């Protein structure tokens, strides 16, 4: 079967053709690779890097918050968030479906979360679950290894923790920064966690640290393989508050015992240090720490008791009898009366043709200033108030801190009202009637005060006329040790005559230690001085008209106090909404004072109180 010459020649030719063709093809391939690997190398190298390198934000922990003794009040814990990285999901719908099933979430909810963030740049992972349970984290990581959930990322994030349910409105809460906050405040970026109320908000700039970043190598399903470089986050500054943990605890225990809504503010009357501060009902700031769920938020915002509002600085209430010290101060300082000025109380008195009742039907008989305060005689104060006039009452009440903002370092403080003819003219375009002064003299009518201003009022009477500015920040540690923050300057000084003031203090001493209504606050050896107030939330006639109603029409109970009488170290106020009587508020004050002095003298702190025996129903 030898090959014929002719065939052999054709065969050789065709083989040569094939040789050339193949050589050309291989040359073209080589050129192709040269173009990709050498000419366009830079472009592809960048693409490869974008493929496998990712920069992760490392959220800085917020600064710790400690009390005046260094006890931790607010700290951080680590939580896990589960996110979808859209750049690494090949099929977003599938990932949503699988993730929902793995986490035990409704697929619709997961989809809704993803849809909300759809317009954000795709390199930003969408957080589906914040503060995931360990079971959820385990479920995801186990499946990620099986490459079933490409693009699902589990991240560890520092999260705010409030170890004890206390002072919710004082600490406030944190939450994801809103769009308006990002555009209004410098240095904030979308996704940041910022303080949204309380000191978390006021001192947000200090508390927020500086986020770090981490460049990591990830594989095709977004799993971190190793870290390339890490820029550690800087923790926020630590804050020391003026708050005393034990005083705060005592306030909370008192409210827990009574179960009333209300507020309390306790100050150091010489410096304005806030020792304790509460508003009830409260919320759990922990619920916000890792993003509040819709249901909890809806419950908080729709609650008729308004748990989110801070009653201590935003609640405006009729002061009732606690206003009488302001009237007495005005009358004494303006020389209208002396402490020995006496009035005869028969249970009611007539001014401008209208009868005004004292709370005691039979009347108090003849009383001087001290005893008028002790027994809270309305007729006495109708009389001296009427003699003093609204302008002077307004002037001195303001000097004592009422109807003014206290200037406390908390957001959105509201201002109360001490009326004046100018105010009435501006507000209602009406003249002031002298009869209104009579009502104002016992803290009714259009007078309204916030609990924090009442605390300032108590402190001003206690320290002799200096209207201190209540404040919460005591010291700051930026990592180089604690630096004390000087207390803010007092708002004003009332030029009070010491003797005249002392007569008022004597009256307040008698309220607690004599025959007065503040007996519940008595603390042997500490000369507790104070004044109850029981303010109607509705007029007597109104009450009759309303008849039976669901609404709570019980009176509000006040107790303003300081101790000891002659060298006060603590001053404050307790307000119980619908607390029936001011003497109930004095129960809380007693527990606070007992705790304060026990701690100061190193005695064991009093146990949780039992108020039932002394409670006015």
């Amino acid at each position, binding site marked *: 079967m030898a090959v014929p010459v002719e*065939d052999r020649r054709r065969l050789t030719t*065709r083989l040569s053709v094939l040789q050339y063709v193949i050589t050309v*093809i291989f040359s073209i391939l080589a050129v192709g690779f040269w173009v990709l690997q050498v000419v366009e190398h830079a472009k592809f190298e960048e693409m490869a890097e974008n493929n496998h390198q990712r920069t992760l934000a490392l959220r800085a922990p917020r600064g710790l918050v400690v009390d005046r003794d260094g006890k931790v009040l607010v700290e951080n814990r680590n939580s896990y968030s589960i996110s979808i990285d859209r750049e690494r999901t090949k099929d977003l719908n599938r990932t949503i479906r699988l993730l929902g099933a793995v986490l035990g979430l409704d697929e619709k909810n997961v989809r809704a979360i993803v849809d909300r963030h759809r317009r954000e740049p795709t390199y930003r992972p969408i957080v589906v679950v914040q503060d995931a349970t360990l079971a959820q984290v385990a479920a995801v990581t186990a499946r990620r290894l099986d490459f079933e959930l490409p693009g699902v990322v589990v991240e560890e994030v520092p999260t705010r923790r409030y170890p004890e349910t206390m002072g919710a409105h004082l600490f406030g809460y944190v939450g994801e920064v809103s769009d308006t906050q990002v555009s209004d405040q410098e240095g904030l970026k979308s996704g940041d966690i910022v303080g949204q109320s309380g000191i978390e908000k006021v001192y947000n700039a200090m508390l927020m640290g500086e986020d770090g970043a981490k460049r990591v190598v990830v594989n095709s399903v977004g799993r971190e393989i190793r870290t390339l470089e890490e820029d550690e986050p800087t923790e926020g500054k630590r804050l020391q508050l003026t708050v005393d943990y034990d005083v705060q605890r005592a306030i909370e225990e008192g409210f827990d015992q009574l179960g009333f809504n209300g507020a309390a503010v306790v100050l150091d009357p010489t410096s304005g240090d806030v020792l304790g501060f509460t508003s009830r009902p409260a919320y759990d700031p922990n619920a916000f720490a890792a993003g509040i769920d819709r249901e909890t938020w809806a419950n908080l915002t729709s609650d008729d008791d308004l748990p989110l509002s801070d009653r201590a600085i935003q609640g405006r209430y009729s002061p009732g009898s606690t206003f009488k010290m302001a009237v007495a101060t005005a009358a004494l300082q303006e020389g209208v009366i002396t402490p020995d000025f006496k009035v005869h109380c028969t249970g009611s008195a007539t001014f401008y043709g209208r009868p005004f009742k004292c709370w005691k039907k039979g009347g108090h008989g003849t009383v001087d200033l001290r005893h008028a305060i002790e027994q809270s005689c309305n007729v006495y104060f109708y009389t001296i108030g009427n003699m003093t006039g609204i302008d002077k009452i307004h002037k001195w009440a303001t000097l004592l801190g009422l109807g003014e903002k206290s200037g406390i370092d908390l957001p959105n403080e509201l201002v109360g009202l001490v009326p004046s003819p100018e105010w009435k003219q501006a507000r209602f375009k009406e003249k002031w009637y002298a009869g209104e002064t009579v009502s104002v003299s016992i803290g009714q009518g259009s007078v309204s005060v916030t609990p924090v201003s009442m605390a300032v009022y108590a402190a001003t009477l206690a320290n002799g006329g200096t209207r201190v500015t209540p404040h919460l920040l005591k010291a700051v540690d930026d990592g180089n040790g604690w630096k004390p923050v000087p207390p803010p300057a007092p708002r004003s000084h009332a030029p009070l005559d010491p003797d005249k003031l002392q007569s008022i203090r004597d009256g307040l001493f008698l309220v607690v230690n004599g025959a007065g209504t503040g007996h519940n606050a008595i603390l042997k050896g500490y000369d507790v001085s104070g004044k109850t107030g029981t303010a109607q939330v509705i007029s007597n006639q109104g009450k009759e008209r309303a008849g039976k109603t669901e609404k709570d029409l019980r009176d509000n109970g006040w107790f303003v106090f300081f101790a000891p009488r002659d060298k006060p170290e603590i001053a404050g106020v307790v307000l119980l909404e619908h607390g029936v009587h001011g003497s109930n508020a004095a129960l809380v004050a007693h527990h606070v004072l007992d705790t304060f002095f026990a701690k100061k003298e190193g005695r064991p702190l009093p146990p949780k109180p039992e108020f039932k025996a002394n409670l006015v129903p």
Partner: protein
Amino acid sequence: MFERRLYYHIDWALVIAVLALCALGVIMINSTTADPTRGTSRMYLTQLYAIVIGLGAMVFMLTLDYRTFTDKSHLIYFGLIALLLYVMFFGQVQMGARRWIPLRVFNLQPSEFAKVGVALVLAKFFGENRGSPSWTDLAIGGVLTAIPLGLIAKEPDLGTAVTLMPIFLAVAYLAGMRMRILGMLLVCTVLAAPIAWKFALKDYQKSRISTFLDPSQDAKGAGYQQIQARITVGSGGLTGKGFKQGTQGQLRFLPVAHNDFIFSVLAEEQGFAGVLVALGLYLFVILRALEAARLAKDRLGAYLVLGVLASFTFQVVYNVTMSAGLAPVKGLTLPLMSYGGSSMIATLAGFGLVLNVRMRRFTN
């Protein structure tokens, strides 16, 4: 049987080049399948075993005169058809295709051996004719190719099926098929393409082709592999990222890196330099084998060499092009380098035949 003097005519240069490519393949398989997070893989060992078996097959193909094989080619051919039919009904299903016969040690893929079988039967058929093949000859040759092709395409394994076509074309070309007919066949193919598009191709095949033309239209789906392949190759640069240092292959941005995309990984880790070495070796192997065809003492031998070489060359060129993201992604492996026992054994057996033809160029 095996005359001692034949030993001196073995083309050692070709053997060494083939073994060098095998070694390169083992290295790259080792690189891509060692995942530190999942423990070491033994895939490269499996590949080594396949090479050893393949060398055994190569030696076996050398020991007998190639004419013995071509004389028995009809039996081999029918045996293969039987195997393919067996696969069709009893084969093991993996990833949606019925391609394998499970043996105890590994899974046999008969379609790989079909290439050698078709080369043998076509060499025999055209080798017996003199002069340019007639229309009837071409038709018979076409049918002989079409039967296994159809069976393999049915598995479905369109990639492997298509590699049978170059065997027929190359052998027919070498046998003296008129250029006019070749031209007509090409024109027919071009005309048939739109019809095939409409009726014969499945949706996933269509999408592969359309995404090839514009990968970005489906960057996360079918176009993903193509884009990733380009990134893999392009990011390799001149000298590469180094052994096991490739990010694209190691971090699994590129799927089946040890298999279809092994050349991409080579390009990434060894760079353009490595690509030139591998391309050079492949070109050397192909040209050297063509030399064997030229030296063959009879037409039968030349046709046999070219039949074996045709599917090999087609696969190399297509796979390398695809590895650079310059051709639609298709399940075509790179002979001698890609992971796969059947392919390795069949390919080495094929080279056994090539060596056989060259070695026996002086015998009668």
